[in-house]
């Protein structure tokens, strides 16, 4: 996961921001506790989003405690105490990170590969533990990585097909959350599918320039191959594709009756995602745009 599912702070109530922060810090603590200090580095907004969803779907009660932050020991912060949602999100984080490092080993050159190999030794233990505790997540992830690999090595892959594995992955991940709130499964399936699709596509759109140079697989680069276009056309096209996906997210989201963190989730869907599109596509101050 890549850190695209963020809130837009300026539109958040302070109390909601604090609640969000407490889940974020709680997840960091949980990672440290379950999988060792080093895995705290894998903390991401996406896994925080997953933890929020878990709490909301499973309707867990959460406890908040005050404690010292590891990164900045002078600062005190509020954090969620250990619960099922945090454990779940931490496991997802550990498993995904391990797969991502393995992917990097095969993708990079000798020295870099050696470095990743070194890293993977550290994360292997975390991965094994997570796999033991949550075999379902491991299974879903392994299948996802395999499908993604197949897609990227096929010829003539459309944008929809390229996004399909990630979309299915998030969909299955969200469906695997115990649903005590009796939310209809179809709604969760669709919601997860389009969230996953959006995450994949924003990542592809964000990496457009990089992949154009390096020649790595990217559905948008493929789409614009042999076409006359300016960089702005590309951004606009990507934006349309993402908007259409957000529309589909909303169709499902508006029908789901989330009990907890409703305002935070609203914020992420209605402000966080569109703003991420703006940042990734239209406002990259340090990236000189090529015409």
């Amino acid at each position, binding site marked *: 996961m890549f850190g695209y599912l963020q809130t837009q702070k300026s539109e958040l109530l302070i109390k909601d921001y604090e609640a969000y922060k407490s889940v974020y810090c709680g997840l960091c603590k949980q990672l440290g506790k379950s999988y060792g200090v080093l895995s705290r580095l894998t903390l991401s907004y996406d896994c925080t989003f997953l933890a929020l969803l878990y709490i909301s779907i499973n309707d867990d009660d959460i406890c908040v405690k005050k404690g010292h932050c590891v990164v900045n020991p002078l600062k005190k912060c509020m954090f969620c105490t250990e619960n099922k949602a945090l454990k779940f999100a931490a496991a997802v984080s550990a498993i995904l990170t391990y797969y991502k490092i393995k992917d990097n080993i095969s993708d990079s050159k000798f020295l870099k590969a050696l470095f990743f190999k070194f890293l993977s030794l550290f994360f292997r233990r975390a991965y094994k533990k997570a796999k033991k505790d949550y075999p379902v997540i491991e299974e879903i992830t392994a299948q996802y990585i395999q499908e993604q690999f197949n897609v990227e090595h096929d010829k003539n892959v*459309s*944008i*929809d*097909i390229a996004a*399909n594995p990630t*979309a299915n992955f998030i969909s299955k991940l969200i469906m695997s959350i115990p649903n005590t709130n009796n939310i209809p499964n179809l709604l969760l399936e*669709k919601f997860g*599918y*389009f969230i996953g*699709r959006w995450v994949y596509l924003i990542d592809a759109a964000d990496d457009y320039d990089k992949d154009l140079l390096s020649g790595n697989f990217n559905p948008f680069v493929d789409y614009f191959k042999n076409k006359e276009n300016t960089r702005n056309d590309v951004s*606009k096209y990507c*934006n*349309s*594709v*993402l*908007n*259409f*996906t*957000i*529309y*589909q*997210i*909303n169709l499902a989201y508006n029908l789901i009756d989330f009990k907890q963190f409703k305002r935070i989730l609203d914020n992420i*869907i*209605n402000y966080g*995602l*569109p*703003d991420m*599109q*703006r940042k990734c*596509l*239209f*406002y990259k101050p340090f990236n000189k745009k090529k015409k």
Partner: protein
Amino acid sequence: MSNPYSVLGISESATDEEVKNAYRELAKKYHPDNYENSELADFASEKMKEINLAYDTIIEERRNKRKNSDGVYASTGYSSEYPDVRRLINNNRVADAEQILDGIPRDKRSAEWYFLKSMVFYKKGFLEDAFSYIETACQMDSENKEYQSAYNHIKNARNGEYGGYNVKKNGSMPMCSCCDLCNILVCSDCCCECFGGDLIGCC
């Protein structure tokens, strides 16, 4: 009886949601509980009856209208080439529908074929393919309202009308180009010169 819309204090063009909200507000106001033990209780219950009646009338009226228009839609109908495929799609049996559509030879694929294929993709979540097929359907049969309205809907969604980032609405970030910089400098120089100073020495 007076106009049900004026009883609820809304215009006839109000959406269903607005009707409901107006009804809720009034019902809260005139609820019998508020008037318990009051001399005015009878008036309130009279008013409440009037509101209930008005609300029921509007809802009933709208429901009938919708039914009729649906009926018209179905009967004047688009005489479909593929009624069974349409039925399958409506019942969410997307894979079956796709199989039938794919079995139709390339040279026999009509505008409706592209439209139905687009619906199949849409239900699968393959949004971009859905968009390109509906586009083709509209190009092949530009008169058809059914294709056109589906196409417009998707286009609006892509433009960010229903959420997402709308480039036009939000405007692009003002970029300070080289040209702007020169303009500013020249203007500042003129201003300074007006007041006896000078910003750019050579002119």
